[in-house]
């Protein structure tokens, strides 16, 4: 059952990315291009998405378990460390180069777009490199 609801959530998430235009890197880069013909679309997407999910987090805060009886797992870390900043900085560089972030890239890869597939494979390799680097660090420490 929880796999089915995950599938459904992913599907609706994908529909949202399609309808909002966020699967189009040109629109995302248009938002990031403050000195060009700035396109505010991403702000509207975030406004819609944040307001709805804020309600859900408000509801979730009053519960221990989900409607499927699963435990609610939220990140517990509160420290703003170098990892968070460096990682977000590196992500921002890549985002600014291609206009793709993970969700839209995988939606477009699913549509068969060669360029999105290339980006997605590189992204998975990047995640794999991170994973190996982490394990290396752990075994040294």
């Amino acid at each position, binding site marked *: 059952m929880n*796999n089915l*609801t*995950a*599938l459904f*959530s*992913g*599907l*609706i*998430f*994908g*529909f*949202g990315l399609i309808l909002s*235009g966020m699967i189009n890197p*040109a629109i995302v880069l248009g938002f*990031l291009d*403050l*000195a060009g013909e700035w*396109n505010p679309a*991403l702000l509207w*997407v*975030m406004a819609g998405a*944040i307001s*709805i999910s804020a309600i*859900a*987090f408000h*509801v979730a805060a009053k519960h221990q378990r*989900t409607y*499927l009886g*699963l435990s*609610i*797992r939220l990140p517990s*870390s*509160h420290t*703003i460390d170098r990892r*968070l*900043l*460096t*990682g*977000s900085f*590196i*992500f*921002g*560089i*890549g*985002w*600014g*180069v*291609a206009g793709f972030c*993970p*969700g839209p890239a995988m939606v*477009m890869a*699913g*549509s068969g777009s060669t360029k999105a597939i290339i980006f997605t494979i*590189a992204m*998975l*390799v*990047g*995640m794999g490199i*991170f*994973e190996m680097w982490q394990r290396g660090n752990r075994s040294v420490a």
Partner: protein
Amino acid sequence: MMNNWIQLPWSALAGGVLIGLAAALFLLLNGRIAGISGITGGLFSLRRGDVGWRVAFILGLGISTYIWQQFFSLPAVQIETNEVLLVIAGLLVGFGTRYGSGCTSGHGVCGVARLSPRSIVATFTFMLTGFAMVYLLRHVIA
């Protein structure tokens, strides 16, 4: 451009609402944050009982254009970045989102929605970096 201003905000807002609904469903049913990089990156650890829902969510994303096209046409998508830069960008996005524990969905939408200071800082960081990068590529180098 005028046309963009009139048409885009409504579909962008409605699309955002759908993204918010998906995140809400996922939170209230599966008890998880709908952070795409976290869901995907978690697959590299291969913990038992932790794989199925991740694959299912990604599958949902992957088939979304196919299902969408049974009812509507897909909006135009322009990917103008060349293949070499796409590979570099992909590597950076993959590594950076894992190192920084989130991307536009996990930090930018879910984290900001629950007013997590970490996510608000992360979102400012990747947005400012994105602004700077596009400025550099479009207005300084080009």
